[in-house]
């Protein structure tokens, strides 16, 4: 299979691969290794913004690349109940084949599993939501 340059670059670098520990970290995962795709995001939230993001992925190069890119893109932004970029836009940006669209939805599920609790989380008197 061929991959576009963006996919190849983010797959090969896999920047931000790993896990976060400590206060303010929210974790979300989706998928199943036995079914070929599993993704996990760790987001550190400070004052309603993402200050650090990591991911793990047992998945194809497209999925790894998108997950890596999202963790980079998210840092510095406000926590919102959506992906930093929509699934159709990610599909176009990374030239994800149509038969792999389900894997982008797994990424979305993992992302939302991390951010939704963060949005509900009350930090001191500040309500992120």
């Amino acid at each position: 299979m061929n991959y576009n340059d963006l996919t190849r670059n983010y797959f090969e670098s896999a920047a931000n691969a790993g896990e976060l520990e400590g206060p303010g970290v929210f974790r979300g995962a989706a998928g199943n290794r036995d079914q070929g795709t599993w993704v996990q995001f760790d987001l550190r939230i400070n004052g309603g913004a993402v200050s650090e993001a990591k991911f793990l992925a047992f998945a194809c190069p497209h999925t790894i690349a998108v997950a890596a890119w999202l963790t980079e893109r998210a840092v510095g932004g406000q926590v919102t109940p959506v992906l930093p970029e929509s699934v159709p836009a990610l599909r176009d940006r990374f030239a994800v084949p149509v038969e792999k669209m389900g894997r982008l939805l797994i990424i979305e599920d993992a992302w939302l599993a991390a951010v939704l609790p963060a949005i509900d989380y009350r930090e001191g008197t500040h309500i992120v939501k």
Partner: protein
Amino acid sequence: MSATRTPVSPMPVYLDHAATTPLEPRVAARMAEVLSSETEYGNPASASHSYGDVAAALVESARAQVAATVGAAAREIVWTSGATEANNLAILGVAQYYRERGRHIVTARTEHKAVLDPCRELERRGWEITYLVPDREGLLDPTQVAAALRADTVLVSLMHVNNEVGVVQNIAAVGAICARHGSAWLHVDAAQSVGKCPVHFASLGADLMSLSAHKVYGPKGVGALVISQRGESGGRGRVQLSALQFGGGQERALRAGTLATHQVVGMGLAFELAAKISSVETARVAQLRERLWRGLLSLGGVLRNGSATRSVPHILNVSFEGVEGESLLAAIRPHLAVSTGSACTSAMAEPSYVLRALGRSERLSESSLRFGLGRTTTEADVDIAIASLTHALSRLRKVAGTRVAGTLPAA
């Protein structure tokens, strides 16, 4: 998956000799001579002039070379376009000829698609096919064949050497069982055997045997079906088969079409050279394979597929735990040319049906690689392969958060 294929530069280390082999320079030179000759371009079927005689002599010389290499008589060799055509001719040809005697065929789940697909076609036409299941090492017990034979069985079709895991089946025992049965002919796909392990058509007890040139450092586009001429005085006569294509009556009317003299000459020389492969070279390739296996073993979470003791020396098939198959292939692709455990035959990759038949899970089948070593493979190539896989596995397992406990037992 369909995609534009872009050449890689520099080219990766080639460890896919089970898929195809580079053309042996002496074979290429001889083929070029035939192609450019002013006297060897005749139609081998033209009996009315000397140009035809010269070409026919080349064809017959090549026929003798191939026959000598596989322990057959020259008159038993029928040229085809490759092993796929030979398999089709054997299976469909026997089925058609003996359709009134019986419509049952025995084969195995781990056969090449060039055997399974003709069998599927016969199923669609009303034949019954029994698919034998090998053990976890990929080996069939000949008694499985004996148990599967029926009064209406007309053909047993089994491969000598499995193309994915390299195991060698006990064909001689199956041949004896078929001979005792009386009406079941034995077809053997020997595309992966020549030059890698002893192949002697008569000793195997086979009635039909498929051969390929390009697996033996010969040209693509040519092969042969060996059709036994033994048994004239025996109890069950000689195997017969119906032709699948018609035209000029070439190859005893079993395979019509003008022969490609240069291709046939190339196959003949390639087989003659394969017959001269020394035990030293065979041992060299076997040592390289074990060097590769030992190197991979140290990575942990690796499983060898197929019997390690009853296999040809040039194939090593390994499953890697804790990595996703497509990512593994993408990571090593710039450095290594190997086959993956999934067949990318359509939009989505499918796990290897051979590894699934050996009991590997879908995930492990997808994260498996077949290494095919050959005459040009060096220690340096093997070390590059180990280094490339060490790096890829380390990185991908970290990305996946996978912890591999250690080496797992071989299948």
